[in-house]
């Protein structure tokens, strides 16, 4: 009950993020460190991580190979570092020789891991781009939307990034492709519905 309540508290709600977008209230960090046991990947983004302020994982996307064990270790480590960073600090954390760029929108932290020499500022833009598309799709997105429709958040991310690289800079295009696919699903659903209806009738 507690958790439901807390998630519905308006202040924790992504719905407010329009104003956040305007004011660009960002906290980010870059992480770097000596021993990198991470898989050596290439490409600008190694993984994307959405974590709630309570440390719950809302979305993970891995573009470089990590074993399941490494994945949960990475999540644990990073959420420990990022959730504990105070406000008004920079949005970058150096971590295991990589940088993690994070940005907080209401109750959610959007994190992306890149190589130490990559453009951190651009990654902040990519995060923001993604949030704007989510916002447009869900209509003032909030964390609950992303919980119950997590697969949609993944579909949208897949239209934005492939192999850790950005594939589309137009929000409109992404929205169009997603809705075209949603329509196909709807159509298939109706068809299936009618068939099952017929079967049910027949039996």
């Amino acid at each position, binding site marked *: 009950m507690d958790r439901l309540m807390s998630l519905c508290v308006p202040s924790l709600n992504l719905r407010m993020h329009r104003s956040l977008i305007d004011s660009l209230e960002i906290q980010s960090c870059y992480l770097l460190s000596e021993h990198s046991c991470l898989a050596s990947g290439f490409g600008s983004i190694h993984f994307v991580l959405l974590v709630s302020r309570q440390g719950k994982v809302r979305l993970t996307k891995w573009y470089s190979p990590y074993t399941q064990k490494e994945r949960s270790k990475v999540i644990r480590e990073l959420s420990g570092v990022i959730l504990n960073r105070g406000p008004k600090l920079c949005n970058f954390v150096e971590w295991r020789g990589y940088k993690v760029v994070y940005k907080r929108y209401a109750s959610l932290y959007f994190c992306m891991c890149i190589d130490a020499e990559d453009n951190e500022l651009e990654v902040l833009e990519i995060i923001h781009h993604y949030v704007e598309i989510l916002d447009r799709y869900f209509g003032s997105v909030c964390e609950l939307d992303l919980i119950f429709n997590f*697969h949609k958040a993944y579909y949208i991310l897949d239209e934005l990034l*492939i192999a850790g690289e950005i*594939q589309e800079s137009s929000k409109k295009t992404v929205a169009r492709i997603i809705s075209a696919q949603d329509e196909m699903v709807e159509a298939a659903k109706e068809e299936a519905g009618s068939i099952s209806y017929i079967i049910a009738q027949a039996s």
Partner: protein
Amino acid sequence: MPAGEGTALPHPIMNSIFSGTRLRDMIRSIRACKTAAEERGVVRKECADIRASINENDPHDRHRNLAKLMFIHMLGYPTHFGQMECLKLIASPGFPEKRIGYLGLMLLLDERQEVLMLVTNSLKQDLNHTNQYVVGLALCALGNICSAEMARDLAPEVERLIQFRDPNIRKKAALCSTRIVRKVPDLAENFINAASSLLKEKHHGVLITGVQLCYELCTINDEALEYFRKKCTEGLIKTLRDITNSAYQPEYDVAGITDPFLHIRLLKLLRVLGHGDADASDLMTDILAQVATKTESNKNAGNAVLYECVETIMAIEDTSSLRVLAINILGRFLSNRDNNIRYVALNMLMKAIAFDDQAVQRHRVTILECVKDPDASIRKRALELVSLLVNENNVKQLTKELIDYLEISDEDFKEDLSAKICSIVEKFSPEKIWYIDQMLKVLSEAGKFVKDDVWHALIVVISNASELHGYTVRALYKAVLTYSEQETLVRVAIWCIGEYGDLLVNNVGMLGIEDPITVTESDAVDVVEDAITRHNSDMTTKAMALVALLKLSSRFPSISERIKDIIVKQKGSLLLEMQQRAIEFNSIVDRHKNIRPSLVERMPVLDEATFNVRRAGSLPASVSTMAKPSVSIPNGVAAAPLVDLLDLGSDDIMAAPSSSGADFLQDLLGVDLGSSSAQSGATPGPKAGADLLMDILSIGTPSPAQNNTSSVDLLSTPGINKNPSNALDTLSSPALPHIATTASAGGMFDLLDGLTPSPSKEATNGPAYPPIVAYESSTLKIEFTFSKSSGNPQETNVQATFINLSPNTFTDFIFQAAVPKFLQLHLDPASSNTLPASGNITQNLRVTNSQHGKKSLVMRMRIGYKVNGKDVLEEGQINNFPRGL
């Protein structure tokens, strides 16, 4: 359009028909859980249902099961049992099933799982599907998780799709290709033509991905780089110019910049094209200048573009006017109020130092301010940058600033900061007194964070600065009174007081800048006593204090009774090492007054050069040098004069039981150097981190290199003495601390009359391993002696001696041996094939143990010979090889 009312799944109607909870309900019930245990319960039940449903193999439940599994997966529970469901969904004909199937594939599997190979065929079919969205799904999945094998199999399909009619497929195919060429660089040349065609596109998505693909190809393949440099540089410059000058386009506008993502990718590609090529660099000068000057810098998007532009300017061939522009941008970044911008500025200034040190030096004050920033990320960057800025001219000023800040910095930053200051001071110090002063300040402020090699280095420097001994010991004495909680400061102080206590008390070697202080002998002893009795002093400190006390007992004869009392108290120490040393030292004080002064003479000046070489090579290089048996020689040599000095019977020199099975016992007894060095000569010294502490201070007990077992470690001295083998080889004069390590346990036993010295078995330089009797029958005895070949710890040379115990001569004597697979055996010819009565012959064997350190040698052998014309065959197995060969 967004799933509003609980239609989280594609088939809501079916959901109501078939059993099991809906996804939405499952998420609700999981979220309603108040405890982790409750959540586990719900998940367990759901997983059980899903498994049951999978077993029924009902296609209608598949997508829902998979969606649930993905959610469960995100919570961190194992979901491997659902992997096959992904494949089934992908193979089914409908788009909704494929969509969720591919999603599951990307989420639940990674490229290292073999299951993934099974999907190659479905992917191939879908890449040729008539529905472009299905093609899109397949491309996306391939681009995100394909392995090298899949990349090879499907590269032709992807290559073809780069020319597909729909731009959305083209862009996906382009990014998919970037993954393919990363996985299989040989395929790069197949994509060059297709990639260059993408550069002419107008569709931004295709253009972005096309530029990215070209960038990837250029970094992988030199041919591609040449090709794009020749054919595409001008086109790319034009594209960049067009979008830079383009009118407002709402679809692509971000904070006044048209498509910053495309900007950045174009700049990145130009960077690789311009790097190392003056002509290409020349072509792009204008547009780079334009981007650098005209880009709005009040929003993040603009700064991101500027960032990339500066990177490109710094990477391409020298165009000095542009570089001035770039440095100016970085200067502006550095003074920006936004932390992110300052962070990237610091980062990039590090690169800028390479070509314009002066320009970066101008920002020194600002950078120093950043070291004091509340943001850890910024502090860390700034500190890195400062350490690059230091040179002979500004070292004093910068060090002062940093040390001042050390006093007030956060605790968790002190470690990084003090390490940096130490390295700066060591590298640039103009004179010894300044170095010593700065190090004292650092140790006073952050002594507990300083690494061992730093204070070891300080002691080496102090030891070498003979004119400053008095000054240093007085300064340390003053410092330690105030900062007694800084462990390393205390150690250095104790060491100096032990060595130079007389200079402290008598104010010897006063420098003009010093205020005279009055320190009595008992004040000096107070400091040492305090260190040894404080409960939070660690083993090393206490051991050093004990040695210092022994030295002081000779330097300050007037209070040697008091010192003796302190030493005696340590007899009750819970630390075995301390207890033993206390007993030994007490015995020296009590019963060997005549030799004590020479025992505790001042340490010879420590060899700076040797120390530095060792320190530099202390990590990997030392491993190989350690392995050489020759290392044992200096130790042995060092031991010899000591023994003479102590007038101990030479029979007692090496009491060590030399079989390594007795390690444990040796440790208990305080370990003799002879055996430990011998053993380290024979083993590759896994802990060869070269603990120089040992070299300099010679405290404590070198534990044998094989002491990896925890029981032994518990007893041996914690934190120090990891590496016995090259301990002390710089020291060969009979200063006291040698005793602790160099003199063997046997030597010590003489001091401790309570213990019976064990009989000596070998001389110091004797073989590392005891000979064994490999075989003995009524007629024949075989003895093996061992030596290690230098350079290769795996290799053991065995000399077999065959002794005829019978009164008859053996003729046609032949020795054969067999070893298990992990060993390699090489037999040299025997010295003779005739073994006369009571005579012997020898034969050399070389054994290489590939499992060295894990398995012991073992050998089966057969000996054939003729006695009086009759064949005799003897067989045996040798299991009693010394361990560690």
